[in-house]
């Protein structure tokens, strides 16, 4: 196990390194830079040169990259070129918002999706199953940003209520925070709940067709007992993997929902960093996203091994 863990960690570090190079190269291939944006409709060559030097953009690319890397290794993600604030702090506060969004979505979606999936599977082929499956399909088919937009406009028109626009953290005021986060969480959770429900239904149905479960049913155990004794466990493991995958997706992928509901999250931070060519912020933020993604994958893998010792190490 220890050897495996070390191997996995080494591979992760390598991937992160590769990812940072890819981001660095891609970002610098996007035309235009921060200096152009600051100067706007002016093109004084002396001023341009002065600002390029200030940001180190006059250096060769490899030197810029190595400089960035060596600072990152020593724990310094640098300073934002436009916001003038430490990148670490910017990412930290954005990450808190996005983490709250994704974890709350995960919890809500699990609470809705998993029971729906189980109920559907236990009633395979019946009306309940069909109803749940229809909901599932609609949830999967609707574009998330469209659902968010329709919810925002629909609810605010019908009730006169709309979420506050100035973000407040849960520590400042939980009530205010929840009224801001409610709609974005629901918008994201519709899709997630549908995905979980479909996944769970499929897993449960296929577990019931496994030989040993069939045997158990044949021996006279009720479906419910079989479900709790045998099936649940078999379903839990792949479900955890699946959730891990989805969690990672929301972390960096809620760009549009964050913009729609004015949440200062990680997706928006990255989007604005791309727009303003704020290289340190984008490189830092994507590095964090990549590391988090790998941490979640690793965590899921480890969990897998704990739940089911049969999984081979190596």
């Amino acid at each position, binding site marked *: 196990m220890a050897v495996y863990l070390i191997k996995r960690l080494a591979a992760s570090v390598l991937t992160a390194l590769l990812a940072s190079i890819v981001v660095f190269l891609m970002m610098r291939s996007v035309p235009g830079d921060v200096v*152009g944006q*600051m100067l706007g409709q*002016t093109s004084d060559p*002396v001023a341009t040169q002065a600002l390029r030097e200030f940001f180190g953009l006059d250096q060769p690319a490899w030197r810029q990259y190595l400089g960035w890397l060596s600072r990152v290794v020593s724990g310094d993600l640098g300073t934002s070129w436009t916001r003038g604030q430490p990148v670490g702090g910017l990412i930290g506060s954005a990450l808190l918002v996005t983490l709250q969004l994704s974890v709350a979505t995960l919890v809500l979606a699990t609470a809705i999706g998993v029971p729906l999936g189980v109920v559907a599977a236990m009633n395979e082929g019946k009306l309940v199953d069909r109803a749940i499956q229809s909901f599932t399909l609609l949830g999967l088919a609707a574009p998330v940003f469209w659902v968010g937009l329709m919810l925002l406009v629909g609810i*605010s028109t019908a009730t*006169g209520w709309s979420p506050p626009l100035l*973000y407040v953290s849960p520590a400042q005021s939980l009530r205010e925070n929840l009224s801001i986060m409610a709609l974005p969480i629901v918008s994201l959770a519709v899709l997630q709940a549908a995905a979980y429900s479909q996944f769970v239904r499929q897993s449960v149905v296929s577990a019931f067709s496994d030989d040993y479960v069939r045997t158990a049913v044949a021996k006279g155990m009720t479906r419910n007992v079989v479900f709790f004794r045998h099936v649940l466990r078999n379903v839990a493991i792949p479900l955890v993997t699946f959730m891990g995958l989805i969690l990672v997706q929301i972390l960096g992928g809620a760009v549009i929902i964050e913009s729609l509901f*004015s949440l200062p999250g990680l997706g928006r931070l990255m989007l604005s960093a791309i727009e303003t060519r704020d290289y340190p912020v984008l490189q830092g933020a994507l590095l964090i996203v990549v590391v988090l993604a790998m941490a979640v994958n690793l965590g899921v893998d480890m969990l897998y091994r704990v739940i089911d010792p049969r999984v081979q190490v190596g």
Partner: protein
Amino acid sequence: MTLPTLLNHLDRRALLALGGMAVAAALVGPALADDLYGPKATGARSGGTLNVGLLLEAPGLDPFHQGAEARIRITVLMYQGLFYETSGGKALPLLAEGYDLSPDGLTYTIRIRKGVKFHTGGAMTAKDVAYSYNYIRDSKNGSPGAGDFGLISAIEATDDHTIKMTLSSPNAAILMTMGNKYGAVVPTGYFDAPDAKTRLNQVSVGTGPFKLAEFKPNSNVTLDKNADYWEPGVPYLDRINFVSVPSGASLLVGLRNGRIDMAPLTRPQDIRQVENVRGLVVGRTPSFNQKAIDLGSELKPLDDERVRRAISLAVDKDEIMRASVGGYGVVIGTMVASMQEAWGVPIDKLPNQKVDIAAAKKLLADAGHPNGFDLTLTTIIGYDWMDAAAVTLREQLAKIGVRLAIQRVEIGVWIRNFQSKQMGFTFNDWATVPDPNLLFYRHFRSMPQGADFRNWKNEAASKLLDEGRTESDPAKRKDIYGRFQQIMAESVPTIMLFSADHVTVRAEKVRNYDQHATGWFYGLARTWIAS
């Protein structure tokens, strides 16, 4: 839209603006604009927090190095220059108290206001003023405004409250240049610290009515009242939250449902979405802004003046304005709407302004394109008006056989093209401070004195721009710029389409907000909230 609903929902001034440009300009001129920041309030109540929703966030808050309009409109509340540019086009003393000009027009002796304190606590002296302007005019310090100060050869403090400024040649626009767009007066030696530039995003060091309390990217810029502000009795507001709302839909919903108290609408046509909401007041004022089509001569066949004229003759400005901003603006010839009265040539006295398809076709045939040609129009992602304007222009140009392809690019890409003078055929959206020199010189004066972004290389026009810059007699100046505008309309380096109105929507309790023609938030220094 019926008249009664207009009466209910538009400001008095805005309503008059609807009656015609002349009325509006007269009102914006002497009646209101001679007060700093707008008229002082009567019966104002002090206190309260104002939440302003902004679609476009300030990329940074450094008044010296950050050139974005989204920065300027906020920092004018924290930083001050020597003069204040009124909507009517005058330069009023702000941190200056007054000035004397030598007979040769080269030496300004400027008296500096006493009793002004920086947000950092220290008292402002003439030394700080000299330091700040010497910093910004040195291109090596990387300010986008440096070029505007190019004619200044020296600035020095002669005593604690006087500076002497020497020019290399007379410049009628110099006081306007010392306004609030770029730079400001900051404490002597401020930029010596290595982290000085970035620190401006956390602590303000100006002299303005508000100081920076918090800048949280993608969330808010919060300003607090400057208790030591030098003007007595103002500002009235304790706090302003500029809330970043990147989605237009949520901004409108937030306004409608009272989540924000005020918002400028970047799309004037959005008036229609909020005009019938109770408790909201819509203000509409003409602007210094211009939406334009630029024709870069580096792109063939736009190097042929006949081709450019033909395009101009095919463009129906009014239709484009109706399509792109719902008609909430003013069609212009060669001068932005708010300066038309003072500096513009009447549109019916300019060539190439009326649609004339036959004449356009003939010009194209003469130029060797009897069957038209293919052309690519560049537009900027995020500038909504350009999308609707582009498809409208495409249909208009099709009538003279010009087949338009539309290429949307990101703002960063567009700026790079612009700065490298490869703008080609593109929409542009820019604003000026109210002086024709500041409006035209850099854009249209040939190299190397100007930047000549469109590669126009017009010597006659350049000569007039040089004359206009040094002439101090207002009547002669107006005549010079009139002749310049004739050349511009004849040779068509750019087609100015229209000035979109500034539209500000506010809750009824928000009082005495006067929208400045630049679009900057000066008026908030005079705004108060009714209880």
